[in-house]
């Protein structure tokens, strides 16, 4: 029912988008209107493009083995449900790129350090790499990290929160996260101060300029 609801909304959105495009073109011209609704191609050029295989090779910051751990953590934090999860939209690849370009040595080291600790604890406890541990084992280990317990310290927890913040940011600013998992309105048209929550049924994924 939710899916049907979303689909109806999407079709409604597409219809209103076409109608809106027509009205907008009349005001600003069709080239400008297309740019407004579709974004500017030039500024897309350098955006990180999700890849299906980024865990199979070294990233800019992380070694291949770290990329795999990162991918599995992404899947544990935000799994595939009715919509793709964080691993499916290559949040791990995004984080590698984002941490490399937009953060300093402190945050980079915090994430590197927690990945290494997770791997160490996994080998101690399960006798195998985190990637080889089964789903339940991975989850148990991460839940203990968040408490923290089972060999993880408060500092480990703090380091993990930096990573978790990046996973959530990466997922909900991805196309799937922002516009499928959440409700996305590029051009709302106007502001309504009061609508029934159930008419949207989820949070808005579209925000102001700064995410």
């Amino acid at each position, binding site marked *: 029912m939710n899916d049907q609801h979303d689909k109806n909304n999407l079709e409604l959105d597409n219809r209103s988008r076409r109608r809106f495009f027509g009205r907008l073109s009349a005001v600003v011209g069709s080239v400008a209107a297309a740019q407004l609704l579709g*974004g500017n191609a030039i500024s897309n050029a350098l955006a990180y493009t999700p890849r299906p295989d980024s865990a199979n090779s070294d990233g800019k910051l992380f070694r291949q083995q770290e990329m795999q751990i990162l991918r599995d953590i992404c899947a544990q934090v*935000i*799994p595939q449900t009715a919509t793709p999860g964080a691993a499916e939209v290559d949040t791990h690849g995004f984080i590698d790129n984002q941490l490399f370009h*937009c953060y300093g040595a402190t945050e980079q080291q915090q994430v590197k350090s927690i990945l290494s600790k997770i791997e160490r604890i996994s080998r101690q406890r399960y006798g195998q790499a985190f990637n080889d541990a089964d789903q339940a084992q991975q*989850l148990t280990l991460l839940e203990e990290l968040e408490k923290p317990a089972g060999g993880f310290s408060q500092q480990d927890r703090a380091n993990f929160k930096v990573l*978790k913040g990046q996973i959530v940011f990466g997922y909900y600013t991805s196309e799937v996260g922002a516009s499928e998992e959440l409700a996305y309105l590029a051009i709302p048209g*106007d502001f309504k101060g009061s609508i029934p929550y159930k008419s949207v049924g989820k949070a808005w994924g579209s925000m102001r300029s700064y995410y």
Partner: protein
Amino acid sequence: MNDELYIKESSEIFDAIVVGSGVSGGWAAKEFCEKGFKTLMIERGRVVEHRKDYTSEGVPPWHQTYRSRVENLLLQRDYNIQQQCYAFSDATKHFFANDREMPYSTAEGTEFSWIRANQLGGKSLLWHRQSYRLSEHDFRANGLDGHGTDWPIGYSDLAPWYSHVEKHAGICGTPENLPQLPDSEFLPPFEMSAPEKAIKAAIENHYSDKQLIMGRMAHLTQPTELHLSQGRVKCQARNECQKGCSFGAYFSTQSSTLPSAAKTGNLHIAPNSVVHSLIYDEKTGRVKGVRVIDNDDLSEREYYGKVVFLCASTLGSTQIMLNSTSKAFPQGIANSSGVLGHYLMDHNYNAKVKGDITGFEDEYYRGRRPGGLLIPNFRYKPSRYSDKYQRGFSFSCGAYRETWKDQKEGDGFGSKFKETLSQAGQWKFNMDAQGEMLPRFENHMALHPTLKDKWGIPQVEFNVRWSDNEKLMMEDAVEIGKEILINAGLENVTGEATERPPGIAIHEVGTARMGRDPKDSILNGFNQCHDVANLFVTDGSCFSSSATQNPSLTFMALTARAVDYAAKEIKNGRI
């Protein structure tokens, strides 16, 4: 726009020169052009064409290079100061100054955040669009409590000019009939959310001296024929204004004043022209024109005009004046009083309060309202002052529901965590104080004796501090803010006084203040220099006091009024 709009070399003597193209410069140019004056607008930065140059507009986060974040190296190297501005992001950074190219210093033990926008349109592209009239109480505060000098004008002088600019710019809001915040010519207001309405009712039920009103903003909620004729349409509630708005739905130079000025055929623009100083004629006692350094190749050129309007931003205009020395004015043009650069003010944003709103889980909003609510200053006259400090403050407010941004480091995993993040969370209410800063001689800017920028212009050195009056006011604002929210029924109410430096409100005013006495002020009541009849300064430099209101609407009204006066004086042969 016509092909001859942009010029470089010119020996022409223009009827009017306007330095700057932001809120004030746009208005000066429009008013002069519409009166038939051949006008040259000088802009230090590049041309930004409406729509065409809003390169980040409409780009969803997943297509942005770093999803709104800015590359670390670039941030550290070029935007060390500018990044402090709330509106700074990857999608807006091209409208901010480059700190590396534009260094300045601060006196030992002081800090100052100088946020700049150097392109056609200036900060009118980046502003927060809040638009409030000053009241008679604001114009009289200095005279009544003895700080600074009395404004030489009163509310009645400015009221018709507020109306004049409001009709053109388009200001939305609600008439409230408040003595401290006169109503504007309003377009319909934005809506409040359900909890905001409830909190409004609770506050106004509990207090007789406080109101919670819808913010007044330069947004077209319902465009008039005049706005449509400017090529502007209704606000689409994206709240991504600082990327530029192709709908022209908020007031900017590009959307509103420039089209009107260009339509007359009287407008010329000299972009990439960094004004070094004004050319003063010792014989006539008048300004002849301006010396310019080319922004790109650093070559020099001059432009000439019969009257010069400085609209280069508060600190920019004063920097130019301080650097315009002559035999008659060794300390800067029109500075016989010695107060040029002094009485620098900003607004004080150093108190914030927040709380949780219970209930309203079935309520949501649709669209992104481009501004919030306001609790107007309730300490607007001496009889309402606190016994601990003088003057007052307002609160900017708003309610919202939490999203993943507020929960991104929360505990949990898997589909349950995902489900939690996908839903709108707790309703929250924020209040941020906006406090008046007293005009004090000690707070000043000066030219550095040795350091220059790449254009060979002496760098600015700031010496500005919050006084005890401002600090005590913010401590009080935290306590009052918390009391308001507790009385309005909010929970988990917290507040804190912060220590952000002056400048970061980006409401810098003063430094070439108006006054009646040429011995202790730079400008008369028409923004005209006491010492140089054909030189006007109509941006925030002219303010005698800061009041608590966002100042841009007052820049517009003062500028339009000053042009009207100058045009009459020219016609009558007095300029």
